[in-house]
């Protein structure tokens, strides 16, 4: 029971991270293409200025939750994905600093450089995150002791000895790139105005078609790479509501964006991300990290779970703390409601 609860609490943290940091990553990807002059660029970046740092906290809080609830998974996955995680860390550093820095430097060339860095780092991060999730769904070559070490790539095949990147995980990376870019575009339709908002709204259409195609491809590919992903769905057919939710939320994005209802379209996109991630988690459960080297080596819930007292104590403070945290998030987003400020003095 504790295992079930904590599995889904960690999943909630991941969904929270993707939904929130997802839109500022998407804005990072888009700002290079959408903003045509300094004023528009400022408006684009001002839409995420007060919140991106808080959004990133979900990654940290999620990592910490994973650490104490499933120490073996945290230890195995973080050391096994050593090289790509270090690249992710470097990208997060460069991205955060370039965003903050550009407001302090008023020399055109330097600004252009930092803007480019911010865009590229944002795009690469979405690809890495998507590929990371695909790595978990595909499985890794676990040794008997529960550890592994993955090279960046091997022969691009998701066989028993894959690399971080193969054709399957690349699809995952592209899916994340398109999904979060679309998510960011919808955010911009809410937070900006005029031509900029029109352009953001316009770019949703091509992105939507790409996303629809990639969603189907990734679904088929996942079933091909790990057929066991469907087991839970057939055992509990009611859970086919998840793929139905994916389709419904995609339709919602299309219709609501067409109907000029930016907030609702954005919320639809949040739902899409939620259903996709929840669907992936349900496909894994109760495995946390499948082994490509034989299912007896899988890191499962019962193998990775922390001691019962730790989890019982954790449940109390975690529930209390996250309730507070959600309160702050709601409060701050409420205060910054509406179009982004352009002439705030600070920064």
């Amino acid at each position, binding site marked *: 029971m504790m295992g079930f609860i904590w599995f889904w609490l960690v999943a909630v943290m991941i969904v929270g991270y993707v939904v929130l940091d997802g839109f500022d990553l998407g804005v990072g990807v888009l700002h290079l293409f959408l903003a045509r*002059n300094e004023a528009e660029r400022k408006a684009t970046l001002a839409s995420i200025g007060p919140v991106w740092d808080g959004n990133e906290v979900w990654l940290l809080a999620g990592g*910490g939750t994973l*650490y*104490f609830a499933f120490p073996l998974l*945290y230890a195995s996955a973080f050391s096994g994905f050593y090289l790509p995680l270090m690249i992710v860390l*470097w990208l997060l550093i*460069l991205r955060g600093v370039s965003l*903050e820095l550009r407001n302090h430097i008023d020399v055109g060339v330097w600004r252009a450089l930092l803007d480019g860095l911010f865009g590229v780092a944002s795009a690469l991060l979405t690809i890495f995150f998507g590929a990371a999730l695909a790595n978990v769904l595909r499985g890794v070559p676990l040794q008997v002791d529960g550890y592994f070490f993955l090279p960046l790539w091997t022969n691009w095949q998701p066989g028993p000895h894959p690399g971080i990147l193969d054709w399957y995980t690349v699809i995952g990376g592209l899916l994340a790139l398109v999904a979060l870019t679309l998510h960011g575009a919808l955010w911009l339709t809410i937070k900006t105005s005029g031509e900029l908002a029109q352009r953001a709204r316009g770019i949703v259409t091509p992105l939507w078609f790409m996303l629809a195609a990639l969603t189907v491809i990734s679904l088929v590919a996942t079933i091909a790479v790990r057929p066991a992903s469907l087991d839970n769905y057939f055992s509990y057919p009611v859970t086919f509501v998840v793929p139905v939710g994916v389709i419904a939320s995609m339709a919602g994005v299309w219709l609501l964006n067409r109907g000029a209802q930016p907030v609702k379209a954005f919320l639809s996109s949040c739902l899409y991300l939620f259903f996709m991630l929840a669907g992936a988690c349900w496909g894994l459960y109760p495995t946390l990290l499948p082994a490509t080297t034989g299912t007896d080596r899988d890191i499962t819930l019962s193998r990775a779970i922390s001691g019962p007292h730790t989890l019982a104590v954790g449940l109390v403070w975690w529930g209390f703390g996250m309730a507070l945290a959600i309160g702050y998030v709601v409060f701050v987003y409420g205060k910054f409601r509406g179009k982004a400020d352009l002439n705030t003095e*600070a920064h």
Partner: protein
Amino acid sequence: MTAELIHRLHFAFTVTFHYLFPQLTMGLALLIVVLKSVALKTGSEQWDRAARFWGRIFGINFVFGVVTGIPMEFEFGTNWARFSQLSGGVIGQPLAMEGVFSFFLESAFLGLFLYGEKRISKWMHWFSAVMVFIGSWISGFFIIVTDAWMQHPVAFDRLPNGQFQVLSFWQLLLNPWGLLQYAHNMTGAVVTGSFVMAAVGAFYLLEGRMMGYARIFLKVGVIAGLIASIVIIFPTGDLHGKYVARNQPAAIAAMEGLFKTEDGAGMVLIGQPNEETGQIDNPIVVNDALSFLIYGTTKAEVKGLDQIPHDQWPTALPLLFYAYHIMAGLGTWFVLLMIVSAFLLWRQRLYQSRLVLWALLLSFPLPYIANTAGWMTAELGRQPWLIYGLMRTSEGYSNTVSASNGLFTLLGFMGIYSLLGLLFTVLIYREISCGPEPKPILADASITN
């Protein structure tokens, strides 16, 4: 080089660089609350601008703290996997609590403090500053709880698979080691914050500009600096030292360079520990002082390294000795400088005393060095243990990550952090050159309008 050494250096380098930022964040957060409170109470626009100025510096510093802090939480897993697997049930807890209880609070209210002043009331803006202060100090607390458990493990048992498990949540949080270390460490952060504030004040006065703001910075910096410089030695440093002496005799013996057990042990002020001969070369010693400081009597016996099995000696003994002495020596200088400055402030002569202003200006890097040396003392003193008395450092690193992979990413961090250091310097230099007066409209603003 061995994988163990690389992983130690990896963590040590990234955490040392990281802590340059939070120590100022935590110290300044308190001082900004002071500035905002005076502004709110007196309605003074000047104090409000002073608070906004330090808010901008805080904001830059905070971002660098955040981006260098994220790697720390990852490195427990990437570089110290075997340690994380066994200890996650205990120390994963305070680390997760830091995210849940502190970072959400801090980031939410900092966004409001820096970007939202026009959207909220004066009172709410003050409240945001207070919440940022509370958030940053809670964050420090959970990190200290984590470290304190590694230094002085309490309230745990072990599961059949070897994992540690928390038995009492409150005993984990209220670990006496942690409370003493927290008090000492946070005072250290206030020392950094107040020395930096005083140094900027001194800089403006020596340059002969921003005189009004300079006086505010000096007044707040010197008063806070005096209090913090005293409190960091007595009672916090004194109590923490006594607790270390009772619980980690090997650490205190190595810090003090006490090779032989003595009744009425002396305190070495300066010298070089020589591990081969087991003595201090070229020492200057104050007789009986160590016994007195630890046990309150000049005749008490202090355990030397001769009573500790050699395989339990701290592994970098001279480095530990020097780090501790640098910290203690600088601490003495802080008190002296702040007593003189505070006396002059009281006699209303500080603003004209160029020599003391120069000393204040040049002293701003020293608290960074002292805080770093203090952390090195704590962490080197814990060696060769990762969890004191329970798990050796050699048993904790990720053995799937080879030494050369570790070296590659360590060099990568060194490169990126050099760049960050450079950028940070440029940004802070710009803020200080512009000063607290409202900025003239920037060139690009004309495009906006």
